């Protein structure tokens, strides 16, 4: 556990016109934002200026020519012209913003993936090597960080303003986010979705470090169990191993090698066994029953924390690796299955 995981860390920034940019992507967002402000500002200015000019020139007391200069047809052409110009402007903005949005979700491959669990009212983070933090996230600069975010209870929203990054964090769902923070420093982390009494205290900080500093920091945290090792312990203590490991032909399939494979379902069809599928099979075992097995597994909903589920998943994924290492000859389609 990190000694720096102080409760409610404050990051003092001072007021600036534009918020800090911790990534190149933040700069791209700001460029679009400035363009939008310029376009919208000019349009607003035009409306205000016309109201002021017409209001002065055509005030009731002034002696000006008020006879209509244009016919109705000309008026309609003007109206349609304005419509066309606005349409072109709007479609341009839509295209620009839409392409940035797609970029936001299709990041480069991950250098590392952190698990982030939101719960009332804190952020719990686990690094790939097992190091855990609360309300503080240390990451190396310049590397692509993937986040797997989920919630223990209600909907939260993971918000890093300096990275222009936000994801709602939903219970029962794993969502991915990525960023590449270029600039070492401390940045704010907010919960942006109202989540109950102390929503405003669900804050933290992102600490971006030079990669060497990050490695030193990790070392200082001491030896932590990697999530897969913790998951192996949980696999025993929650009694999963009683049915799922070892003997063939018992009530439940072996889980070795299941991750990433197509699983045949009792109701017909198949599902790829990804993280979400594994989570569902632990929390709602009746949701996707595997073909050839009885739906006898009890639900672990309410008995196991989201962090533990993530560790179990890490363990099950590691079984996959082990098996491929030890028995490369096995046909990959003959995998284990989940109840």
């Amino acid at each position, binding site marked *: 556990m990190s000694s720096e995981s102080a409760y409610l860390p404050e990051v003092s920034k001072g007021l600036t016109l534009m918020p800090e940019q911790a990534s190149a992507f933040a700069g791209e967002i700001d460029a679009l934002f400035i363009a939008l402000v310029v376009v919208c500002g000019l349009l607003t200015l035009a409306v205000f200026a016309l109201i002021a000019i017409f209001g002065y020139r055509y005030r009731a007391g002034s002696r000006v020519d008020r006879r209509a200069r244009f016919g109705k047809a000309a008026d309609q052409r003007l109206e349609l012209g304005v419509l066309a110009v*606005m349409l072109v402007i709007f479609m341009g903005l839509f295209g620009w913003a839409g392409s940035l949005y797609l970029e936001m979700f299709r990041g480069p491959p991950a250098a590392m993936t952190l698990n982030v669990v939101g719960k009332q009212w804190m952020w719990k983070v686990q690094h790939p090597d097992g190091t855990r933090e609360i309300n503080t996230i240390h990451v190396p600069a310049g590397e692509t960080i993937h986040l797997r975010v989920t919630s223990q209870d209600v909907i939260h929203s993971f918000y890093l303003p300096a990275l222009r990054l936000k994801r709602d964090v939903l219970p029962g769902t794993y969502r991915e986010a990525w960023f590449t923070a270029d600039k070492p420093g401390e940045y704010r982390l907010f919960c*942006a979705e109202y989540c109950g009494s102390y*929503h405003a205290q669900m804050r933290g900080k992102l600490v971006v470090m030079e990669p060497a500093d990050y490695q030193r920091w990790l070392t200082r945290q001491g030896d932590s169990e990697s999530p897969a090792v913790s998951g192996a312990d949980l696999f025993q203590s929650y009694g999963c191993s009683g049915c799922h490991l070892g003997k063939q032909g018992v009530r439940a399939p072996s889980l070795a090698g299941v991750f990433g494979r197509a699983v045949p379902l009792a109701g017909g069809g198949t599902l790829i066994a990804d993280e979400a599928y594994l989570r569902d099979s632990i929390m709602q075992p009746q949701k996707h029953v595997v073909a050839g097995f009885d739906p006898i597994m009890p639900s672990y909903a309410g008995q196991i924390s989201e962090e533990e589920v993530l560790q179990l998943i890490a363990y099950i994924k590691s079984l996959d690796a082990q098996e491929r290492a030890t028995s490369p000859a096995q046909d990959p389609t003959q995998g284990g299955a989940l109840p």
Partner: protein
Amino acid sequence: MSVSTDPRWPSEHYLKEDWGLRGWLLTTDHKRIAWLYLVSITAFFFLGGLAALLIRLELITPPGDLVSADTYNRLFSLHGIVMVWFFLIPSIPATLGNFLLPMMLGARDLAFPRLNLLSWYVYTLGGLFTLAAVIGGGVDTGWTFYTPYSTLFSNSAVIAAVMGVFIVGFSSILTGLNFIVTTHKMRAPGLTWFRLPLFVWANYATSLIMVLATPVLSCVLMLISVERLFGIGIFDPALGGDPLLFQHLFWFYSHPAVYIMILPGMGVVSEIIACFSRKPVFGYQGMVISIMSIAVFGFVVWGHHMFVAGQSLYAGLMFSFFTFLVALPSAIKAFNWTATLYKARIIFSAPMIYALSFVGLFTIGGLTGIILASIAIDVHVHDTYFVTAHFHYIMVGGMVTSYLGGLHFWWPKLTGRMYSELWSKVAALALFIGFNLTFFPQFLLGYQGMPRRYHEYPADFELLNVMSTLGAGVLAIGYLLPLLYLSWSLRFGAVAGGNPWRATGLEWTVDSPPLKHNFPRTPRVTEPAYAYDPTAD
């Protein structure tokens, strides 16, 4: 001015007799029901305003020091629920609409006068449930009732609040039905669809939305109750439900509801600008098409409230696309109001100052909506003060400003009295200045990243928050002044006469206050709306 000596004061009118309780509580006169609504929504407006004031006072310093976090959460929930459902949605339709729609159509009353009275009782019943929720400890879910917080986690009076909103929904539906039927069936001879005042068109479009969207809200509120009371898994994933389902259903109503909260204001402003420009509204047909297309397109943009909530990428892009499209008719309207001023004969009366404020504030609100529709930007500013500022520009800068403008415009018709010209102009300017001072800093706060619904915040957001709170003080003056001088005018105001603004429209052809059945004989319409001539005078 003594009423008895002024020849313009009518000998017969709808306020003359029946001042007992029966005369008011059992009335079926649309004009009196409008007054019932006016008094009720004013009470709710000041209740919601009081909550807003406490919110702003709490936020004047960074730490949470004035009220506790739980109290703060109850305050913004109360503010939202009361302002949206008990003020904004009924505001113009149920007061000015109720009073004016039959008069503008040349009708004696709405199509279903007793249904009209019932809708006020339903509104009142819903209001009582909401007040019960407040007294019973308050509700802390925000006006959006997001699940699973509202169904399984909140320890507050969610059911009472939800019931209040559920009930008040029926009041909207009844009013909407009444307006639709009245507009279709009770137009005076010669009053064709394209001769209707834009106020009628706007209320007609609003009514369509009320009738089509409100049932969805009712359903989703029922589902909240079912999950909360009986633990049936609908929205909570731990019970096999889906929290996003709630957001889809909620916004399927609540986005069109935004248009319920702005279209009537657009109608009011069109009337006022035409009258005080002495000129027909520029592009009447374009205005009608815009109103109706806003009503239709408003139904396909709800997903823009959920750009970071977890819908698919392509759904997000489609909703962004439609949101840009729905902005087009609004842009046309702002352009047409401005173009109406060209070669006009502009009189800066209090209603006109409100109406021009509306055009300016609505333009800012609408264009910041374009910034939010730009989907990549929304990811950053979603659920920050940028959004708060944007929708207050539409709902307060837009709807409340136009409501006050309309109230000042038709006040002589409602009461037969005039109010102080000076004070009304002071109030209109206080509103414009106070409003901008309150909400413009919130755009800056939002882009800086300050999230909404925060009881406390980092210290460097303080300056902008202080500005916002001071602005709210000026804004409060803009709201309290009309309460004073309008009440004063009820007894001491000068007699207005039938048509003090020399406005067109059937409601101005009769005495103020009007007869119980509006018209001595059914009027006949021979000209389009807004037959003003700026070259006359």
